[in-house]
Structures are given as C-alpha cells and as structure tokens.
C-alpha cells in the first residue's frame, strides 16, 4: 500500500467514524434518489419574492418535526421520553386558533397558548420527578388526555381562522425570501445549541442521563434539570403546533400532530442520540428529522402506493439503523474480504468485571 493511499484511507476512516457521518450520508443519498426520480428536484427558484422549490418545501414542512425533535432530544438526553408532544401540538394550535377566532389579538393568543404549554411541560416534569412515575407512563397520561383537552378547546370542530390575522405568517409566511417557519427553526436550534453548550445545561443533562446515580453523588440536582427538559420539550411542541395550525389556518384537535411523537423519537435516534440517555446531538437530530421529511417527500413524488408506504418507510428506517450500528457494520465488513476494518473496541480496563445475569 503506498503512503498516499494509506493517508487518504486514514482520513476516510476518521470521517466515517464521526457520529454525524452516517445520518448525513443517508440524507444525501435520499436527496440524490429524489433528484434522479424527479427532474428539477434540486432547483430553487424565486417566486413572488421568495425562494421556491422542493428543498425549501422539505425544510418548511419538516420545520414542525424539527421543533418537536429538538425538544425530544433534551428529554431523551435525561434518560426520559415524552409521548405527549403530539397532544401538545394539538392543544397549542387549538388554543391559539380558538383565541384568535374569539377576536383576541395575536399577541394575547400566542402568550396564552405559550403559557399553557409551559404548564403542560411542568405537569410532565413533575410527574416524572416528584412522583417518580416512569417517563413513558407519565407522558402517556397527557398523550391520551391531551387529545381530549384539544377537543374541548375546539369543541370537536375544526376551527378555521381568518387568513389575514397575521397568525398565518408563523407557518405560511415568508421573511427575506425564506419561510418564517424555517427561520423560527433556525433561531430555535441556535438557541438550543447556545443553551446546551454555552451554559452547563448540556453537560449536566448528559451526566444525569448517562449515569443518574453518579450524578446524584456528585451533587447535581437532577429533578430541576429534568423538569426543565420537559418544559422545553412542551414549548418546542407548542411552537410546532402553531406552525402546523397556522400553515392551514385551521386547528384540528383530533389530527394535528397525530403520531408526531414517534417521528420525533425516530429523528432523535437517527441523529445518533441513544434512547438510554446521555450524550445528545442537536445537529444529529436536525439531520434525523430532515431524513424523515425527505423520505415523506420521496414517497409522494415517487408515486409509491399509499397502501405500501408504511412498509417502504420501515425498510428505509431499518436500513439506516443498521448502517449506524457498529456491530452490524463490523459483521458486514468482516464477511467481505478487503472491506473496511472494524474500529477497535475499547481496551478492557484492568478491573473490568464481567456481569452475567444469573
């Protein structure tokens, strides 16, 4: 092997070991497939003074999912999970639209809706910390009950609001050529990144999620952090709820955000954050959410029959998860002569104790 080749191989190895490599590779692959199937897929034109094209659509329709996934990332980092985000999406949209349809101003509607989301997040957080209910059960309560609350607000109807109320701008408007929803997402992601990495929040969350007992023994007050995580998650879901309802100028208590919690959890996992908590990646989550949205777009444009879309989605997701599993890659690599050498496993430390369940 000549030296140049060796160097480039080493660089490649380093690149493929980066935690974002596989998610980004899958996203790029999906975009390429689309570009082949749909001519002009990658084209972005200016229409009515703003950018227009499939890529912009993916960002725009993916915006609510990115928001929800962003919040979900924080909760999952603490070792928890939030199943109630879909219901919070419905509640926040219903609340805002109801107030606007009752003649309240935009600011009042948003403020009250935002406040409601804070309360819902607090509810989840307190159930998990104060009452020590397992997160999956604690948030299941609001997941089920929240739909009822949303129905109560909308009175079981789809509330349609005046398209000139200004509320529409959140999900459907444009600013400086870009959809407002995309700008909100950019700002939120930046804010979350600053909050996580410029303060010690990220470190402490990862510590709590990574090893709860060690965190307790190091004096971290975990309950406050965990509550904060759930509140942040609910607020993100609330903003997503505004985007979804304002985009169509209507609040649908029954269907808005239905099953979005599953997509969000999937986005977080695709982005490389473990469901068991600990290390999280905001950038990874954004990429994960974009993969899911691009996949949806692929299904629509490639004309995959609706009957089989779920199977198609499952196949792609399985493929991505397998790609991300070092164990799977090692196995495939080993079987193929001349394939990439699996990365070395951690050296066993001297006092390693092998535990076998009795």
């Amino acid at each position, binding site marked *: 092997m000549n030296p140049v080749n060796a160097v480039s191989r080493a660089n490649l190895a380093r690149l493929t070991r980066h935690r974002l490599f596989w998610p980004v590779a899958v996203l790029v692959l999906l975009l390429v497939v689309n570009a082949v199937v*749909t001519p*002009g*897929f990658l084209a972005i034109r200016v*229409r*009515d003074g703003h950018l*227009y*094209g*499939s890529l912009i*659509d993916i960002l725009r*329709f993916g915006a609510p999912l990115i928001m929800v996934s962003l919040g979900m990332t924080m909760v999952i980092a603490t070792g928890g999970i939030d199943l109630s985000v879909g219901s919070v999406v419905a509640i926040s949209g219903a609340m805002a639209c109801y107030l606007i349809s009752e003649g309240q101003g935009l600011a009042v509607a948003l403020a009250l809706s935002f406040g409601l989301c804070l309360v819902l997040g607090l509810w989840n957080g307190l*159930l998990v910390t104060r*009452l*020590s*209910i*397992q997160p999956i*059960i*604690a948030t*299941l*309560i609001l997941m*089920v*009950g929240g739909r*009822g*609350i949303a*129905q*109560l607000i909308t*009175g*079981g*109807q*789809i509330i*349609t609001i005046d398209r000139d109320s200004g509320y529409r701008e959140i999900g*459907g408007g444009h600013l400086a050529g870009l959809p407002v929803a995309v700008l909100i997402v950019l700002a939120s992601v930046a804010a979350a990144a600053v909050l996580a990495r410029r303060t010690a929040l990220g470190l402490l969350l990862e510590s709590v999620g990574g090893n709860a007992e060690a965190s307790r023994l190091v004096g971290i007050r975990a309950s406050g952090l965990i509550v904060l995580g759930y509140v942040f998650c609910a607020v993100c879901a609330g903003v997503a709820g505004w985007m*979804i309802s304002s*985009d*169509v*100028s*209507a609040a*649908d208590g*029954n*269907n*808005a955000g*239905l099953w979005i919690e599953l997509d969000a959890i999937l986005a977080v996992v695709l982005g490389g954050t473990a469901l068991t908590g600990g290390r999280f990646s905001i950038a990874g989550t954004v990429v994960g959410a974009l993969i899911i949205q691009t996949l*949806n*777009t692929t*299904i*629509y*444009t490639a*004309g995959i*029959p*609706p*009957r089989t*879309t*779920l199977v198609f989605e499952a196949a792609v997701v399985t493929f991505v998860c397998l790609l991300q599993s070092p164990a799977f890659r090692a196995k495939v690599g080993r079987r193929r002569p001349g394939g990439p050498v699996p990365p070395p496993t951690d050296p066993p430390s001297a006092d390693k104790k092998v535990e076998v369940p009795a």
Partner: protein
Amino acid sequence: MKRRILAAAAGAALALTAVTACGDSGSGSGSGSGSITLGFSQVGAESGWRTANTKSIKEEAAAAGIDLKFADAQQKQENQIAAIRSFIKQKVDVIAFSPVVVTGWDAVLKEAKAAGIPVVLTDRAVDSDASMYVTFLGSDFVEEGKKSGQWLVDQYKDSSEPVNIVQLEGTVGAAPAIDRKKGFEEVIKSKPNLKVIASQSGEFTRAKGKEVMQALLKAHKDIDVLYAHNDDMGLGAIQAIEEAGKKPGEDIKIITVDAVRDGMQALADGKINFIVECNPLLGGQLMEIVKKVHEDQPVERRIVTEETVFDQEAAKKALPSRKY
C-alpha cells in the same frame, strides 16, 4: 412504585371521563311519558362531521318527542358493547348505533334480538348476519365516488385531450377512502383521456393534504384536476396550489366530498368546483325509521342517507343555512 403508576393512571382516566361527561351534558333529556325510548351509541367526537352528526340526532330526537339515551363510546368497541348491554337492561324500545369497528358484534346483537329489541345501524356497517339488525342507514361511499367521477366525465364530455388527475385519498384502509376511490375510478374509466397520474394519502387532514399536494405539484407540472376524498384535504391542497402560483378552481379543477361549511365556503368562492355531499344530518331519517320500527311497519334493509351534490351556484344558495 407500581402502585403509584396505577394510581396516576387511574387519576388520568377519571379526569378523562370527567371531560367526556361534560361533553355529553344535555343528553338523555327527553322524559316524555309513554313516548318511544331510543338508545343510541355514538362512535365518539373525532371530527367535525361526527359532532354535526351527534347534534342532528339529539335535536331531531327532541323534535320527534323520542326519549333519547345517548352514549359516547370514545372510539372504543368495549364501551359500545357495554352501552348496548345497558340499553338492553333498561329495556329501551329501539337501539341504534354507529359501530366503531366492523367486526365482533355477533354476541351483543344476539342478546338484543333475544330481548326483542330492534337494532338500527347508522353511518357504518358491521359484518354480522343481516338478520341481526333491522336496517342500515348511512351514506353510500361508492355512490359518492361515482357522483364525483360522473361530474368530471360530464365536464370533459366533448374533449379528447388528455386530462391529468391527482387524487388525495383518505386514511389508508378506511371504508370511505376505499369506496370513494373505487366509485370514482369506475366511472372515469369510460373516458380513456381521464387519467389518474398520482394518488397519495392525505389522511383526511388539511395539513397532510397541503403537504402532499405541495410535493405533487413539484413532481407533476401538468395537473388538470384534483379529486380529494374530503373537504379538509381539498382545503389544504388549495393553499398549496395558490402558493405554487396557480388558481384553484380554474387552473386546477377541484372535486371534494363531504360539504362541510368551510368546503362550501370555498366552493362559493370559486376555489372548488364540485362537492358531493356526505350528510351527517341523518337525525330526521333515523327518527322516522325508529317510529316505523316501533310500530312494526316494514322498513328497507338498506337506507341511503338523503344526499345531494353542490356546484358553485348551489353552494352560494345553501351556504347561509349551512349548519356545520
């Protein structure tokens, strides 16, 4: 720990029951002595259509002097079976219900039959033997699809230019989605130039309708007609069409099903071209059937809801008196 979880879950369940109980207030009000008692078990309150359906049944029962015992199943079959059993125990005169699912009704229907209480199905069908119930009152979804297709065939009867149609289907596997697609495609087969170039599920919602249409507009440059399985998806798609710089109703002709108020408004505004009604207001028809059944008069085994179609002119006339 486990006990705590249970307690919390029970608490939540209680809260939920309280919520739904509020929604039910006003039911079971009739107390006319000697009048007919009708036990009605509703699916739930999952859509605007359903709410209008419930309202119609309650109002028409009151107007007809029928004593209505109303139970909301919250989209669960076990609740519905429990409700029907309690109707049997209370010895109501007639039982009517909109089944949550198609299967699993044999046992409870037999119990009703043994108790000599006639059963009327509304809106949705069951797979039990037809001898188990008196009649089925509801829309014919295939017919709705055919009406949509027929209007399209009539529109293009003099042209042989190719017409590109996209279809927004309802939730995968739902009876209205399957039947509306079937009826529509059956009719347009007669004109070879009418061609469905893309068909995707918009899950009966505005948000999905918009998202899917947005993508379809990018993938297909020459869409002439949109057929949506309900108004909501059509309304979402209209926004996508407008954002693509096209005029809904002119550049792309739009057909939808349901005729809810927002849809009728769009029709009157010229953004939709044709709506096939799927009428939730079957309260009046139901009460007539109940009276007939109670008096042992013969009724048809299958009664289709009185439904009409609207074009833009008809919508303008109907809109002011539209209830839902």
